[in-house]
């Protein structure tokens, strides 16, 4: 009797044991949709834990024994979960989603509306809210099959790229949590970075080629990397990046962005909707090819050039968003916060109202440091 109770109590903890050598860890999920057959197509990138050890055997995408560190599983189903289980059905282990890093949508999925495919990733306890959301520009399978140079699996590469977008701020990494938040908004357009495999053979690499813009879960257009930075300026998410421009005396200069912030002020008055965008950027002088010494007067000139350049980027992005009638900046939510009562009448027709919003962009740039040299290297 005592023994039976003891066994029950002590062995109870073993019901949900998960041993590393009994798991198949999914690192990336590719989701696509077949309109004709109404089937969700799931491509799961699964890693071989044994091959993920640090690369004594030469690195690259193959580990010990020459086996690839990751492989992909293709499965179909009416729903995502069905496809997920069918993926597990193809191999000897159950696919575990707790370490999934990226979710990539294919062409069919963004056409059918991505909101249909995310419920599983939010509802199930295994997937994490920190996964990155991307959209494939081109073939989904190529991206997941891509053999990276530095990492073991393409999912790790994409994850690293997403963590590293701050260097140019020309892509806007979006996590599942943020993406779902945007999708739940009635007026804001969700965005997700576009990824593509470029080049041939050995020269192949993954590249972020802009940002996909959604409305109600469906992709309605895209903006280019430079325009993505315009978006990031407005929402205050620029981390770093380079603005290169010719100065007045013909020399090229690069200005490194160090810190940026923004404020959006919506104003609703008799003659319509105005939005004042204030952007503050703190920069360093990063490079100067010839030209004059970096005197304060010169720096002020550079600042003005940088301000103009930033303003150009922002205005260009605003034009793009107007063309798509897509409120990618969350202007509607800003109106809601300030003019809640009047917003309720505006909300249903926001799509038509948005292009009529008058923007005024105000940029303040400040160049603080000039690097370790006092004068530019004399050029001949």
């Amino acid at each position: 009797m005592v023994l039976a109770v003891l066994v029950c109590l002590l062995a109870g903890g073993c019901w949900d044991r998960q041993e590393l050598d009994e798991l198949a860890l999914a690192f990336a999920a590719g989701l696509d949709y077949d309109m004709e057959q109404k089937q969700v197509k799931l491509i799961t990138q699964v890693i071989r834990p044994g091959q993920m050890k640090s690369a004594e055997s030469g690195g690259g995408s193959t580990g010990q024994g020459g086996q690839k560190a990751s492989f992909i599983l293709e499965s179909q189903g009416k729903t995502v979960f069905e496809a997920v289980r069918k993926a597990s059905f193809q191999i000897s282990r159950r696919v575990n989603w707790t370490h999934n890093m990226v979710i990539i949508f294919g062409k069919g999925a963004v056409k059918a509306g991505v909101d249909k495919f995310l419920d599983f990733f939010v509802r199930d306890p295994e997937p994490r809210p920190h996964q990155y959301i991307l959209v494939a520009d081109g073939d989904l399978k190529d991206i997941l099959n891509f053999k990276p140079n530095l990492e073991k699996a393409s999912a790790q590469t994409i994850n690293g790229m997403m963590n590293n977008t701050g260097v140019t701020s020309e892509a806007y990494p979006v996590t599942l949590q943020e993406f779902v938040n945007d999708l739940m908004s009635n007026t804001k357009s969700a965005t997700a970075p576009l990824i593509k495999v470029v080049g041939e053979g050995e020269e192949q690499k993954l590249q972020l080629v802009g940002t996909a813009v959604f409305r109600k879960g469906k992709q309605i257009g895209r903006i280019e990397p430079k325009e993505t930075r315009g978006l990031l300026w407005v929402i205050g998410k620029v981390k770093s990046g380079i603005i290169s421009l010719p100065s007045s005396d013909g020399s090229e200069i690069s200005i490194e962005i160090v810190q940026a912030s923004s404020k959006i002020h919506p104003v609703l008055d008799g003659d319509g909707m105005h939005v004042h965008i204030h952007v503050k950027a703190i920069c360093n002088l990063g490079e100067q090819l010839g030209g004059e010494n970096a005197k304060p007067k010169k720096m002020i000139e550079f600042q003005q050039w940088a301000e103009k350049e930033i303003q150009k980027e922002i205005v260009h992005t605003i034009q793009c968003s107007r063309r798509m009638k897509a409120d990618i900046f969350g202007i509607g939510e800003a109106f809601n916060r300030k003019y809640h009562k009047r917003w309720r009448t505006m909300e249903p027709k926001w799509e038509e109202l948005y292009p009529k919003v008058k923007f005024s962009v105000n940029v303040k740039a400040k160049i603080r440091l000039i690097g370790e040299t006092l004068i530019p290297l004399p050029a001949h």
Partner: protein
Amino acid sequence: MKLERGKINGLELTTLIAGFLFGSAVLLFPGQWAEHEGWIAILGGVAEGFVFMLLYAALMSRFPGKNFVEIAKEVYGPFFGSLVALAFIGYLFHLGSLVVTDYHDFIKLTMLVQTPSSMIVLVNCLVIIYGVKKGIEVIARCSQGMVTLLCVFYLMIFGMLSMQIKWTNFQPFFSLPVTKVLWAAHMAGSFPFGETVAFLMVFPTLNKPEELLNRSLKALFLAGIYFFIGSIRTIGVLGDTARLFLYSGFQSGRLINIANVFTRLEIIIGVNFLIMGFLKIAVLLYGCALGIAQLFNLKSYSPLVLPLGLLMGMLGMINFSMVSENFEFSSLVYPVFAFPFQVIIPLTTLVVALIRKLPKKGDDDN
């Protein structure tokens, strides 16, 4: 003859009440109904809790050294008093089983997916039964360490998430219908603040009865501040998506990410819940066992603890056939269902006692 000879001091009472309040509310964020105005609902709930506590303290100070079952017997007479006491004990028992349900649902949903329900409930209940058998002193002393631990954990989580809080998530202020926010405030008032009615069984063990009100209000204040912090964290971090999740507090913990090193720390919130749930169920089970023992004039309540605890666990497993039923019950039915037990019964008892001019002088030795 006293069934409970244990004595707890003021600090232990404070932490015990605070722990009881944290209970399942650490996980099931009480103001969730009011979406981005949950923090207002919490403040409303705390205010309601203060009023409740004044009522309970008034009742206690009128009958020093007596718990609710004894008071009811004295105020309503042996027969009706027993009926009222039985209803009250029934409420405690049912409430305990609801906490067991929350406990079980949470563990089953997020961690031990394949482990059978009975196993989860049994293991938890046995620990609680052991605690209650050892008496209220033991539980109260445990609560000191546990609540301190929770306070540290809670602030830690808040600190780690503070960078992710978006203050715009709280705007526009006062945009929801007033009735909705008021209902959410009453929900927070009935769960968890009004549930302190269970302490009508514990208060008499306080060694210095004159400290009762002071100590209990401190506990309410502490819990109120923590729920407020919790609501700021949950709403600020999750924004509109907070209404997506069953355990939105837990979900906000999932977003902790400091330099890709400190991640997956939501389990701390889970552990908080498990510890506080222990305190809550233990107090309820204690109240039940003691109440029944007094009702039937038993010599000790300790033989009742094991069967009552197991029954509570079993009821916890069959309370609801699905989680969504639980959610609907707690948001729509419970605030009304609990009202008679939390307010009407103590209030009527107090009023009747006032009218009958109880306790009679020279009659307060028992």
